[in-house]
């Protein structure tokens, strides 16, 4: 760490950011607490569910799953698969409520009009097809460089 004295403008910028942030957040908190259309018990239950659901369930599960699924892959293939798994996970978050389709109402055929399971599978197919092509390209590119290494000594 550099022991340079912080210049005054940075100090004031930090103070201003914290002060503005406290005001904005306080405005939002007062709004949540006083707006009768925000039913507080439901609001807090939902917020705590997404917070702890993410921090203690979804994220650790994703990390463990990613570690397990890429554990036995060779080093040259692992980064590509890790990237593809990340893209798959992010897409799943967006697609899941649509795929489950609980928002569909009988009398509004134009709301959620598509076949979302099919759409989701198409996206997954595109992601993993691209991944497979990348892996093949990497495998092909790897072979010549291996032989040059072997020739060197």
């Amino acid at each position, binding site marked *: 760490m550099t022991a340079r004295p912080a210049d005054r403008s940075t100090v004031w910028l930090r103070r201003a950011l*914290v002060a503005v942030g406290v005001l904005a957040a306080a405005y939002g908190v007062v709004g949540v607490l006083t707006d009768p259309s925000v039913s507080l018990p439901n609001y807090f239950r939902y917020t705590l569910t997404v917070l702890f659901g993410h921090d203690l369930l979804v994220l650790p599960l994703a990390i463990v799953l990613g570690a397990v699924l890429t554990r036995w892959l060779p080093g040259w293939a692992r980064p590509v698969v*890790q*990237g593809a798994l990340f893209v798959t996970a992010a897409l799943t978050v967006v697609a899941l409520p649509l795929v489950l389709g609980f928002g569909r109402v009988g009398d509004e055929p134009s709301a959620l009009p598509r076949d979302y399971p099919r759409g989701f599978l198409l996206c997954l197919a595109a992601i993993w097809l691209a991944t497979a092509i990348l892996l093949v390209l990497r495998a092909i590119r790897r072979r010549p460089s291996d032989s040059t290494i072997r020739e060197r000594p």
Partner: protein
Amino acid sequence: MVRVPEPLTRLYPSRLSRLFTSRLRSPQLTSRIGRLLGVAVAVCFVTGYLSHAIQHPPGWFYWPSRPVNLYRVTQGLHVATGLAIVPLLAAKLWSVYPKLFRWPPFRDAVHAIERLSLFVLVAAALFQVTTGILNIALWYSPMSFFFTTAHYWTAWILVGALAIHIGVKLPVIRRALGAPDRAAPQTGSLSRRGLLTAVGTAIGVITVATIGQTLRPLAGLSVLGPRDPRIGPQGLPVNQSAVAAGVTAAATDPAYRLEVVGPARTLRLSLAELGALAQHTAQLPITCVEGWSATATWGGVRVSDLVAAVGGAQGASVRVESLEQDSLYRISTLAPPHAADPLTLLALRIGDQPLDLDHGYPVRLIAPNRPGVLQTKWVARIEVVQP
């Protein structure tokens, strides 16, 4: 990544954060993703506040009626950026996840407060992203609170907590972003550039899969778009049907009259009388707050003509009331720029067909550059409000 569990004796709180062994995590990575995330949150906040202000205008607020597609762009951007936040937030939270288990949990009182503010920041961010996704998927039951107001107030909490966070971390961020870009050691797993590429790819896939709900040329590609701008009665999506609004009987009653109230006189016009007035067409989009939009060619009577017919002055506002009984959006007010705009119609037709019942038959409001919830359907009464 993690080491697959070794003896459980390793799981002492003081050792928990050392279980995370990825060498990819660094202030450089976190700051880079954080910078993108900060921009995305700012875009969502500004476009979201704009949409709020158009619907609940504060005294100082002015919103023009042109360009016709401005709201379509800002609200399309709001939803698309919100969806793009999913991979950014996922990578950001992953990059700092071991810090959650730091032991001891805090050094002193100030540090404790700062860490608690992070709970607020993360909770608000997860709240905004997940409620937004649930809302565009029309899946309201997990929320069991009123989405619109909760999403609005939590947006203030999110930007506030984010400003505090940036203020606290500014020296770390500056040092990290100013440091030379050394490639992380290659250990047979994802590099920093690799992860950023994956984040970018995820944003690209999510955007292409959904943006067609507002960009018609991409509708065929957007297999996960919550709406298809080509699908619906008369080729136009519907958010609320006549049955759901409970207006079917009133809207199809032959005794229907449109009441036009102004300072000089009150008119009660039948559908035939409305059709006998000067007719105009306008090509305007229905632009939903949920981020979808679709353009149609509307035909009907200019609101400004009706205002003049009942003695309303230039610069008047117009209150538009629906046949609906119990709806938050039963009444909308056309501000002076929209009331005077020649494109603002009480529409009787889409193309050359009478409006479908679900599109607001017999008469609906259609005005440029406004959210769909304000484009009142099944209009029963309009009233000129003098300046």
